[in-house]
């Protein structure tokens, strides 16, 4: 294996964080005209705008660092499936409102810890993006925690449904705390976040909210991994980029 340069590692790192934002933002945006109430529709679209906004800043930074004349859109629209390194948790289908809330909660709890740490990065640009994103993800965490509690402690039906969502999605949480080679390399310079160190706090936050929601923390399952480290996705991901990249692939090289 060829040695990873620091520059390539940084490009990969920024893009990979961006991938998380874009893909979960894509999923949130799929709720348009499908939510249980008009107010909730508007709320999820706000989340989608925040998350896709984060992706844009990170892709732009990756493109600038890479210095090959690329833009945010090259990262979103012209990379292949294996080039995307988003967490699997961000790409699984929306399912019902409960699945969506559980995913948003698990990711937001993670994002808050992650961006808080990233705000201390030695890389000034990443630190700035981290600092700005914290405010957004704190709101997502608040919104999704409250909903998780309403569903968990709502009706017997909602309790059962959301416990099932949690049990199903739990297998994807292991990947949140894995390190790529690029991360390990950049961690040594104080640029990347040590995500393994976020696990204890995350467990605490999650278990606090689940307790309030009268839900049970699932037993640890064999973790589903593969996307973050190698770009090996779920079957669902191909459909995301088929949809997303259709215009750019069909009409290459156009201004939109």
């Amino acid at each position, binding site marked *: 294996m060829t040695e990873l340069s620091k520059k390539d590692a940084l490009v990969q790192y920024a893009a990979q964080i961006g991938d998380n934002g874009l893909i979960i933002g894509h999923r949130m945006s799929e709720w348009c005209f499908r939510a249980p109430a008009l*107010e*909730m529709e*508007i*709320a999820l679209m706000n989340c989608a705008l925040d998350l896709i906004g984060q992706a844009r800043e990170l892709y732009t930074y990756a493109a600038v660092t890479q210095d090959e004349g690329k833009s945010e859109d090259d990262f979103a629209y012209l990379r292949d499936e294996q080039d995307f390194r988003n967490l699997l948790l961000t790409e699984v289908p929306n399912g019902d409102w409960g699945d969506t809330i559980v995913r948003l909660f698990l990711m937001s709890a993670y994002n808050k810890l992650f961006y808080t740490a990233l705000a201390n990065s030695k890389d000034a640009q990443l630190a700035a993006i981290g600092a700005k994103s914290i405010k957004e993800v704190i709101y997502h965490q*608040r919104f999704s925690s*409250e909903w998780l509690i309403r569903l968990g402690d709502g009706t017997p039906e909602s309790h059962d449904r959301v416990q099932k969502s949690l049990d199903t999605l739990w297998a994807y949480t292991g990947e949140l705390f894995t390190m790529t080679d690029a991360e390990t390399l950049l961690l040594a310079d104080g640029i990347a976040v040590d995500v393994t160190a976020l696990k204890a706090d995350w467990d605490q936050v999650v278990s606090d909210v689940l307790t309030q929601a009268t839900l049970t923390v699932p037993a640890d399952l064999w973790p589903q991994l593969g996307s973050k480290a190698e770009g090996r996705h779920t079957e669902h991901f191909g459909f995301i980029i088929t949809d997303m990249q259709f215009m750019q692939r069909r009409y290459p090289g156009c201004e939109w």
Partner: protein
Amino acid sequence: MTEKEWPLWEVFIRSKAGLDHKHCGSVHASDAEMAMEAARDVYTRRSEGISIWVVPSNAISASKPEDKESLFEPADDKIYRHPTFYDIPKGAGKM
């Protein structure tokens, strides 16, 4: 339609420090937190606010339109409550 609709909340927003909260609409929400967040998501998309009040609509008591005359018109002839009622010569300075 057996389902009971989430209650209605009136939304008041302070657009910047130094100004009063002003009524700007309503949202449906099952509880106060949800109402607050819905108000934020719906009514401050363009940085219209720095503070929000949400109040259950049914908690507001309003004056009745047919009482308008007896409630408000008696104030109309109490013009001595206004500073312009009084003539102060220019020489007395700003007052």
